Every structure is written in structure tokens, then in C-alpha cells.
């Protein structure tokens, strides 16, 4: 039996699928046009499961999927570390996790905000850890999207969000402030699959590593 591989739906998928193809894993239908969510690979008996990026770590942690591809932002929000192995940086989907505030706000102009900072974000765990490390008391406002609106409607003083080109921020009159982390897509591996399906996981990662042009060493044995 092959591996079960959980993939992040959306933009990254079109970059990951050619990499998978180099590893001989080609879905029986095009996941980007099909309404199906589970695809058998044409060879090798692998299964590709397409889901929201934020769900990938859950499937991998519990071994429902052996391998997953998702953003570092998702992994950080999930808690990373002890849950699974995160061995390969695919170098795609690059962006930054940043704080941002309206260009005309006190924060953006280097003045401090009195009292706890109101932070709107969908990365509440990341934001909590970041501001704790900064020694800053904050009130977190969990939102599920379009964070840029929150400071404009005076719901928040700043946001924590993914910044790619910065165009969305700019269009809404926000400026990026501090970088919390550089983000890229990572391959994560279930801890037991790494042991019990070592050969299969290893050969997949080795091809993906070559495809990503990534030479971090590792993977022999």
C-alpha cells in the first residue's frame, strides 16, 4: 500500500502537483477541476487528499495521512514541535507573517498605544506567543478572514496576517510593521509513518527535495 498524502487546497496545489509528479505520484483526475477530494495516484498505490491547509496538521498528527504539505504559518498556529516531523522546506508559497496597522495610526508612526493592544487575527496562537515574547499585553480578536477591515472599523489597533505582495494592505491603507516569521510550504510527516514506512517516506522526500532544489542533507539509511 502506498502513502496517504494530505495537500493544501488552493494556490499552492498547482505548484505541489508537478513536484509530486516527479515522485511518480500523479492523481487519476485533475484535483483543481474535479469536485472529488480523494484521488488515487496512477502508480504506486498512493492516495492524495485535498483539504484546507489548516486541517493538514490534524490529519498528519493522528496518522490519518502519512505525509502532508502545508504552510509554515499553519504549522506554527497548530503548535508544531512535538506533533509531527517537519523535515522539508519546499521553498514555495513564500510570504511573511507580519503585524500591520493603518498607515495613519499611532502604531504605524512609531507611537505607542495606551493599554492592551487590540490585535485582530486568525493566527491567535502565533500572535499570543509573539506579543508575549515582546512583553506586550494584548487583547486578541479572532477573525476568520479579511483581517484588514478590523483596524479600519476601529475593532482592532493592528492585525497579524500573511503578507505576500503587500498589495491588499496597501489598497486598504495599511502598512506592514514587524515580521513575525518567514513562511513557506513545508512537508510534514506523521511520527509513526516516519518509522514504520521509512523507505516509502524517504524516497518521496528525496524526490521532493530534489524538485525543490533543496540540499539540506538528511535522508539516508
Amino acid at each position, binding site marked *: 500500500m502506498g502513502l496517504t498524502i494530505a495537500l493544501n487546497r488552493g494556490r499552492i496545489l498547482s505548484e505541489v502537483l508537478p513536484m509530486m509528479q516527479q515522485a511518480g505520484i500523479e492523481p487519476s483526475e485533475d484535483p483543481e477541476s474535479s469536485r472529488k477530494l480523494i484521488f488515487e495516484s496512477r502508480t504506486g498505490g498512493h492516495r492524495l487528499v485535498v483539504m484546507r491547509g489548516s486541517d493538514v496538521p490534524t490529519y498528519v498528527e493522528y496518522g490519518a495521512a502519512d505525509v502532508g504539505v502545508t504552510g509554515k504559518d499553519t504549522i506554527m498556529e497548530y503548535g508544531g514541535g*512535538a506533533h509531527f516531523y517537519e523535515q522539508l522546506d519546499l521553498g514555495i508559497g513564500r510570504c511573511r507573517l507580519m503585524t500591520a496597522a493603518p498607515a495613519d495610526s499611532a502604531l504605524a508612526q512609531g507611537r505607542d498605544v495606551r493599554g492592551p493592544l487590540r490585535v485582530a487575527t486568525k493566527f491567535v496562537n502565533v500572535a499570543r506567543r509573539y506579543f508575549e515574547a515582546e512583553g506586550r499585553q494584548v487583547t486578541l480578536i479572532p477573525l476568520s478572514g479579511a483581517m484588514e477591515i478590523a483596524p479600519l472599523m476601529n475593532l482592532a489597533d493592528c492585525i497579524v496576517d500573511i503578507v505576500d505582495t503587500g498589495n491588499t494592505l496597501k489598497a486598504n491603507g495599511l502598512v506592514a510593521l514587524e515580521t513575525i516569521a518567514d513562511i513557506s510550504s513545508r512537508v510534514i510527516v506523521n511520527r509513526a509513518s516516519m518509522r514504520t514506512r521509512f523507505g516509502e517516506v524517504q524516497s518521496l522526500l528525496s524526490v521532493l527535495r530534489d524538485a525543490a532544489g533543496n540540499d539540506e542533507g538528511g535522508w539516508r539509511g
Partner: protein
Amino acid sequence: MSNRNWRLPAGVGELLPPDAWSLELTRRRVLDVFRAWGFEYIEPPVVEYLDALLVGAGDDMDLQTLKALDPKSGRLLGVRADMTAQAVRVDAHSRPEPGVQRLCYAGNVVFANPLSSLDDRVPLKAGAEVFGAATLTADAEVIALMLEVLAGVDVTDPILVLGHMGIYQHLVEPLDLSPALEAELFAAVQSKAQTDIARLLDGRPETEVLVRLPGLMGERAILDEARALLSGSGPAVAGAMDALERLADLVLESAPDAQVRFDLAELTGYGYHNGPVFSAYHAQAGRALARGGRYDGIGGAFGRARPATGFDVNLNELAATVTGDVAAVWVPWMDGADPDREQAIRRLRRDGTAVVVALSVEDERPMRCTSVLISRNGEWITDPVI
């Protein structure tokens, strides 16, 4: 449905037939193996003073421990989230044997704040610890016992992963990192996130070695590669490597069929290990089935620092391979006494067969009763239900 009194807290479950028997039979089988290996059984309390429970453990254990204020003493009580510190207390204080002490235990622990939402918050754990033996033979015995426990609950062909905390610890020590950076590095190495390791170390002298360390896993051949990579890392690292290899030899002497793998960056989540560490995996389980390692000197907090090594298992996870379906014999309702029949029932029960006797004429045979006690030619025998 307006009555919600039936609700249980998140992550808290109850076991029903046949799963409850399956767990209890698992506990018995595991304890039988411990007893056969000469381990002495202890039953530490479920609740004790928090400071004692947190000895040697990191912040994680603190967050995992359910707390309550003791009105009698005014001190904080903790509900144990791990039983190792309790065994350490027994060895250091309650029963300070001068020589080697082998202890085992089984009991429920409680996770105040489970790391994962699917985790059982009140699992039944069992473990075995050896105190007072600094030699690798003690680690090897514990590992062999761990494998025997898995065999005892019908886990076939587990994969045994060996590592040594000393390799990472001796590599990182000379870097003199701030505690915050060290914690981040630990997490990055633990999750094998090589990109993050490189970023955190930012060109320090040991960067190359530490970035490659998490990739050093696999079968025995990996040790040669590791020696080449670690050749310039000092005698302490080389000593840990030697210990790892010798440990594998010792394990294979007592368990020749063990499928041994190595992982030079295996950092367990317990926070108190400081020597060889080991874990066992199976293809059917998404996580380690058993794990343990050496944690010398932790007992110092109780006034007696001793070498120590041990492991524990989550019995709820092991119970998956043990059937709790207990087939029983059905005795239909019969008016009046029959001494022969009564004796037949007694004999069956004494021999370990479950017998269910009808309590009234309306009482029907439960599905799990797969045979019936009948009288044939004046003799009471069990007859399978077709």
C-alpha cells in the same frame, strides 16, 4: 432533549463492554509481564502536592497538571499527569533501597490541557523503572521488557527506535545559547525542521552538524555516517555514540528479532531524559506505543540522586489489540434445584469460563452467550449455539 446531566467533559470518555474488559485484560497482561521480570508494584496516590509531581519536568508538565488548592494545608495539589516522578520519590524517599530497585505501576493520569484535541484526557498508563543502575545493561533490560510488554498484548513486529539525548545536549552545550533560543532550537530539532535550525543558529560553528543531525536516522549503517559527521564534536558526543551502538548490541542479544532503528535527533517530549532514549512504533498506530529513556539524578530533588531508566505505555492505546469479548455459557431458567447442574456451573466458573444463569423464565440468552448448558444422558455439558 432537555436533560444534559449525562454530559462528560471534553476529552473524558467512559469504556463500555466489551472495551472495558479489553482495557482491564490489557492491564493484567502488562502487569503479569512486569511481575515475571521481577519488578515490584507500587500504587502512588492520584493526587499529591504539586511541587513533588513537577520534579525534573518542564513547563509542559506544569500545564498538563490539573491543580486544586488543598484546604487542609493551604498548598497546591496536583492530579498526576505522569507517574515517573512518583516512582522517583518512592526510590529516593519512601523506600530508599541501597542497591538496584525495580519498580512498576499502573494507574490513571489526567491531562489538564491535552496537547491534541483527540487525546484521551484520563488515560490508563503503566510503566516500569530501574533505579540505581548506571550501566547500559539496565537500559537494555528496560527496552527488552518494553518489547515483551508489546508482545504480551499481541503487538507484532514493532519498530524500536533508539536515540541518545547526550548527542544533542553535548552539541548544544558549548554554543552557550540563551534559554529562549535553546528552547526554540530544541523544538526545531525535535520536529526535524532543518530550515528553522539553520535560521536559529545563523552560521554558528555547529550549524552544519545540527542541521544534518535530524536526518541521521535509519538502520545501523547510519551510525557510520553519524560518526563521520560528529568526528570533530568532542569526546562526550563520541561517548554517546558508542553507548548507543553498544545498547543496540545488548538489546539484540536478548531480543534477536527486534527491528532496531536509530534516530540521532530523537528528543522525547518528557523533558527529563538525559541519556539513551527509546520508543516503539507499529504500522497500525499513528503514534509511539511505548517510550522511555534514562533520567539520571532527578531524585536529587527528593534528597537522593540516583541513576534511573524506564518506560511507560498508554494502556488505552495498547488495548486495541486485546479483545474484550468474553464468550459466556448460558444456563436457561429451570424450576427447582439440581445439585448436579449447580456443580457443573461451579466447575466451569472455577476453570475460567464465564457462566450466565437465567434469573427468571422470561430471561433471554444474551448475544455473548455462545453456548448453552444442557443435560444430555444425565450429564451437564455445554452445547454451542448454532
